[in-house]
């Protein structure tokens, strides 16, 4: 069991601006926002509050009409100040003015020994109405799990290998008992033969938080990014076949579940990392799900021509300097915008460059110094083209999947081929590195999502 699964494929992106292990916990966000678009695959949300309503942490804000029992609840207590809608009344976000002192909606509290005697029937309603169910993501599709489904396994990756990722041992420090409680609760709602697997980083020392967890199977992984992606870990332990369902959670979600049952609260506070080359002092902050980032980044950014990213540089999304942290994100990355033309001979396509590249083609020198921390901007470094090069995606996708052919099957609307080539096993993040290294500059993550949606709707 202590065998290490070693992955040879992948690519580590070393960027400037790693967070120092220093926690700032005295900044309080003005507002938090719940954004339906953060929940991939969400149907039509129905809002159950009105502007001006006072809510507590854990009060339902909206639910998805196609899965009505799963509540999306307020991360903080305060006043609903804005329900923003776009075209065709599409719900864009629900903004809540956060109280300084969080008032929690009360849920049933249990001691550790009481937990052991709980039944699935007692647990499920709590999970669903409190908002913690949103942490359970199902594969295939990478969407919020359907409470009616029975998974064949649960996977939790306990480390993040993406660029400038927060250190999970730091952001979840001292949460062992909640993590264990969360695991125990999850164990109760799945059949006996459904194992919970923890993906452990073989390179780091045994984690205090995760190493001693009971009722789980530890799987050690070693390799380059995307070794920390839960999809990659599933593929090497218990790959998903057609008709099977696997649930995945971030450790944060497990801890949230644990807190719900031990403390009787929906605790949406989280520690995030503010990272990137444009951050003056990259460090950790205590905040809440969906927090407005303005107060956190203010005064800590080197210049103003930058991009704020909720999440990491591979899978995150652009937000405004006063935008809100994505629901599932644990980091804010700030990098320079790359919107300047570059002359061919000085720093264009005929000039040698130290810009990071997975490739070693003419003039790309970054391979000489792979461990150097680099400043990368948002330039696409070239224009979109047809697929010409073959064999590169394969080098950064550590799965027995033919990435190019899966992509082409999606583009050709070939449902059978998509299915046979492994669409059930992947989500966007697994193709993020393929998209990064792509010579043709195609939007592979978007293509993968398109394919997943096609299969879902078929």
């Amino acid at each position, binding site marked *: 069991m202590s065998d290490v699964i070693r992955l040879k494929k992948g690519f580590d992106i070393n960027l400037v601006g790693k967070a120092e292990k220093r926690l700032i916990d005295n900044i309080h966000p003005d507002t938090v926002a719940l954004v339906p678009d953060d929940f991939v695959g969400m149907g039509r949300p129905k809002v159950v509050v009105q502007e001006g309503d006072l809510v507590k942490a854990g009060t339902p804000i909206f639910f998805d009409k196609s899965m009505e029992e799963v509540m999306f609840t307020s991360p903080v207590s305060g006043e609903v100040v804005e329900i923003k809608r776009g075209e065709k009344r599409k719900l864009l976000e629900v903004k809540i003015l956060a109280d300084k002192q969080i008032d929690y909606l009360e849920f049933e509290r249990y001691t550790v020994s009481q937990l052991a005697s709980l039944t699935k029937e007692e647990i499920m309603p709590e999970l669903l109405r409190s908002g913690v169910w949103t942490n359970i993501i199902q594969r295939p599709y990478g969407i919020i799990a359907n409470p009616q489904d029975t998974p064949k396994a649960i996977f939790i990756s306990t480390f993040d290998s993406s660029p400038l990722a927060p250190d999970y041992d730091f952001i979840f420090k001292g949460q062992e008992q909640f993590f264990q409680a969360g695991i125990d609760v999850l164990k109760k709602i799945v059949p006996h033969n459904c194992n919970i697997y923890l993906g452990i980083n073989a390179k780091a020392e045994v984690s205090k938080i995760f190493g001693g967890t009971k009722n789980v199977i530890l799987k050690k992984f070693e390799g380059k990014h995307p070794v920390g992606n839960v999809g990659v870990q599933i593929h090497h332990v218990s790959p998903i076949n057609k008709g099977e369902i696997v649930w995945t959670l971030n450790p944060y979600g497990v801890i949230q579940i644990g807190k719900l049952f031990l403390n009787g609260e929906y605790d949406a506070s989280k520690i995030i990392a503010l990272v990137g080359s444009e951050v003056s002092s990259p460090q950790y902050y205590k905040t809440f799900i969906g927090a407005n980032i303005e107060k956190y980044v203010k005064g800590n950014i080197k210049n103003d021509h930058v991009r704020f990213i909720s999440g990491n540089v591979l899978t995150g999304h652009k937000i405004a300097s006063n935008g809100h942290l994505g629901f599932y994100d644990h980091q804010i990355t700030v990098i320079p915008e790359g919107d300047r033309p570059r002359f061919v001979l000085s720093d264009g396509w005929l000039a040698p460059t130290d810009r990071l590249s997975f490739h070693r083609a003419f003039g790309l020198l970054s391979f000489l110094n792979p461990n150097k921390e680099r400043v990368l901007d948002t330039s696409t470094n070239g*224009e979109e083209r047809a697929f010409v090069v073959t064999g590169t995606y394969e080098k950064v996708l550590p799965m027995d999947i033919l990435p190019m052919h899966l992509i082409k099957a999606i583009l050709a609307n070939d449902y059978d081929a998509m299915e046979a080539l492994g669409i059930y096993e992947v989500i966007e993040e697994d193709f993020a590195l393929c998209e990064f290294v792509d010579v043709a500059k195609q939007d592979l993550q978007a293509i993968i999502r398109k394919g997943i949606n096609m299969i879902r709707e078929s």
Partner: protein
Amino acid sequence: MKFLHKILEKQRPLFEKGGKFERFFYLFEAGETFLFTPPTTTAPKGVQIRDAIDLKRLMMTVVIAMLPCLLFGMWNVGHQHALAFGKEMSFMDKFLFGAWYVVPMIIVSYASGGLVEVIFAIIRKHPINEGYLVTGLLVPLICPVTIPLWQIALANIFAVVLAKEVFGGTGMNVLNIAMTARAFLYFAYPSQISGDVWTANENGEVIALGTQGLVDGYSGATALSIASSAGTQGKPVLEAFAATWSEGLFSFWNLFWGAIPGCVGETSTLMALVGALILVGTGVASGRIIVGVFAGAYVMGWIFNLLSSNTFAQIPPHYHLVMGGLAFGAVFMATDPVSASHTNVGKWIYGFLIGVLTVIIRVVNPAYPEGIMLAVLLMNVFAPLIDHYVIEANKKRRERRLVRREAI
């Protein structure tokens, strides 16, 4: 250089929708992106950073990898000329003699291919593809120096239109474009691209028999044609090589070095290997294919040794690797990622079969002494089939997993 970009950007409205030169938008864009990497940034969703590579840089790498073959080829044109006429020429003289005739070939090739590219970009409204940077240089390298320039132009136009643009441009083609150009010439104008057409006289034309000043016993034949005719006459090939008009011309090491008659860029195995080193070292071309071709040719040569059907079949297999265009074709033609096999396993098979077919065509078919051209084109057609089986194997593995699970 900012001012230049500003000047260019000022012209942009002219080319955009509603502008005076709207039709030429992609031409404008090609020009601008040639000079400047555009200031586009990543989308709000998806990767926020991109690799420093782009297709232009990639194609440039291939062009650079071809330079050793090109420069050597220029020298060799002069060298062959000097040999034929028994002239004393310095290294520089030979090189300049070759350059004088090869450079126009390149210019014509780029101009004709580029023109078609631009016309299609305007009509079909797609960006101008960088692929022609490579094709434009490949075509002159696989023609004899004596070829009429109009034939190069015609071949380029034919190949770019029929092998590439009708399929939708770079990335969509089924056949290797440069090889299609050569095949076109081979079947349309065989007298200018086969026979003893490889060595140029003073005017860059084919040396006519009985020309004054020729070395005694001169023949412009290539190693392959000598081997082929020796095969039909039942003479041992190596003896025929040894009995040639210029001493040591067809010794193994001279064949490897490449100071022999042949197409401009294909004669030197050594220079092709230098190119291979660049391409594989930079990760631009697949080493699997290159090794596959050489292995396939060697194995097939060895099998022919066993069969020993004629004297050509008896030639030591390693001679196959240095004769004709095998090395050049293996490195620069077979590795074209678009027309080759796309899967890693498929690349081994694809390369190997090209090598095998090349030798079969050389030895068995007296009509085509050079096999690599047809072998590459044939395998281009079969590459999707090879991939199909590799892909099916991948699907089967997934299916078996499912069946196994259901059995539990």
